[in-house]
């Protein structure tokens, strides 16, 4: 792989701190991870798994005790490049209230570029574009305390966008939000990933968010446990459950049916695949050829029925 294609490279990195009792704690232990430009990576794990500590290394809020972290080709231990890295890698935090600095939305979005010493008219353009990208233009003169959690997080994302980053690291941005706010944030970062090609590192413990990533990294007790596509990760239903993580409903149903010997397929992660799996399994006869479906088939030709239903199911 070309070195320029790598956004973040973590090489045998450990993070050690001393707790209140004077003991050394390895919050991160010999982690290796490489994130490519343009990737959408989710890091999952329970509280205390080290996922947030890892994220703070990407923005040089922390520095490795052992090993190296390279961001945009700069070693994070090199003090000379700290501000270059922070400019390229923006960070969004968990609590939407505690990262908004200014009492007016657009002034807050301007905070980052102002720190970079960018000329006023250029800041104005960036702020307008950033608010447009997160769909918050109409709130630009509002006070942040009047916004919903999801809206505040989108403002925080806009604040990072205005610095024109190559990568955005989001540290549990949805943990304090309601389902609507969570959807807003997830849709926004996906859009930025697709349309602007911004690399996304998304830390979460919500499985339904992780399935939408290109790649999922599972952390446990400071160690990287798994690293793969959502399909590879979420088919390991038993290991994830043991870790205290959720899996998609479809995966879990398939896993339990497989365990009972009804081969519905091994790498099912969504409802579409579960339906297909069931139709191709030993259960198919009993489920498909019942009176209930036969009645429907009389009204509509079978081929049309499936396409219709698929169309409905996909949105």
């Amino acid at each position: 792989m070309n070195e320029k294609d790598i956004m973040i490279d973590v090489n045998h990195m450990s993070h050690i701190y001393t707790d209140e009792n004077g003991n050394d704690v390895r919050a991160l232990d010999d982690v290796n991870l490489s994130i490519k430009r343009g990737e959408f990576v989710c890091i999952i794990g329970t509280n205390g798994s080290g996922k947030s500590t890892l994220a703070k290394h990407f923005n040089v809020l922390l520095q490795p005790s052992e090993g190296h972290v390279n961001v945009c080709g700069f070693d994070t231990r090199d003090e000379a490049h700290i501000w270059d890295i922070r400019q390229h890698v923006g960070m969004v935090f968990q609590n939407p209230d505690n990262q908004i600095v200014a009492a007016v939305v657009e002034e807050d979005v301007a905070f980052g570029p102002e720190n970079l010493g960018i000329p006023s008219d250029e800041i104005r353009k960036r702020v307008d574009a950033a608010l447009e990208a997160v769909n918050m233009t109409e709130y630009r003169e509002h006070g942040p305390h009047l916004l919903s959690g999801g809206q505040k997080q989108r403002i925080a994302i806009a604040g990072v966008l205005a610095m024109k980053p190559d990568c955005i690291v989001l540290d549990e941005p949805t943990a304090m939000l309601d389902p609507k706010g969570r959807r807003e944030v997830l849709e926004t970062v996906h859009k930025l990933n697709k349309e602007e090609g911004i690399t996304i590192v998304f830390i979460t413990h919500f499985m339904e968010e992780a399935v939408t990533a290109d790649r999922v990294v599972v952390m446990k007790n400071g160690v990287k446990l798994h690293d793969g596509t959502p399909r590879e990760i979420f088919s390991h239903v038993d290991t994830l459950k043991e870790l205290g993580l959720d899996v998609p409903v479809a995966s879990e149903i398939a896993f339990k049916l497989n365990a009972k010997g009804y081969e519905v397929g091994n790498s099912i992660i969504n409802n579409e695949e579960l339906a297909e799996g069931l139709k191709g399994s030993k259960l198919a006869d009993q489920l498909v050829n019942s009176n209930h479906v036969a009645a429907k088939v009389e009204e509509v030709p079978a081929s049309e029925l499936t396409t219709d239903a698929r169309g409905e199911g996909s949105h």
Partner: protein
Amino acid sequence: MAIVLDNITYTYGMGTPFEKTALHGISLTIENGEFLGVIGHTGSGKSTFVQHLNGLLHPTTGTVTVNGVDISASTEEAKKMRHKVGMVFQYPEHQLFEETIAEDIAFGPKNLGLSADEVDERVRDAMKFVGLDYNTYAERSPFHLSGGQMRRVAIAGVVAMNPDFLVLDEPSAGLDPFGREEIFEEIIRLHKEKGITVILVSHNMEDISRMASRLVVLDKGRIVLDGEPMDIFNNHRDALQAVGVDVPPVSVTMEYLREQGLDVSNRVLSVDDAVQAILEGGSHVK
């Protein structure tokens, strides 16, 4: 024993330019022993609603009675009844303030005017209930605990008031699946073993569907649905969608399988139910 809300309306900032009516004529009876789920999107009036249950807010019109006593009165009896309704707010760990865990849990019972012995007994009892060993934790500072443990201390502080009714507002917010499971096991035990009537406010449909025996859906300050969760999820999907509330993922999955022509029941509340429904598919009575 019941909480009865009779046609309550609540208006914020009465007589000011910021006047806003958050609740419109809500009537509801919460029977003793129920496990009531309350759902609604942000701004539906949920939190205004629950604050009426123990007199933190008094209705602008209408009455709230607990066990037959109007709790907006300023009598001793009304005060006693307000204390029968425990309230666990969102992120309750943010209200901890004492130097030790035991002292923090004792705050409520002390305010009830109990004797030192009784307070001590309540504290021990509550700690046992939330799974914190008295000898290990009583003298520790609550601020050195993990987030999940701090939340359990805060809940213990409310449980120690010996409430007949317990209102919990998003008790699992911000916790990982492990922490969530722990909190909910505790709540289920409070309901089953102590016979406490639970009122659970949550965005998480999965949790509500798993635990609640009755579900109330709020929208724009009104009750739009009230019934058994399974019935609401299966028969009022459109109404739920209209008010911006999600059905539990397992219901979505089963509904999708049915749309795909697979003959399975949609009367499921958990993954195990779903597996069972698939195995019994084609043979269930319509």
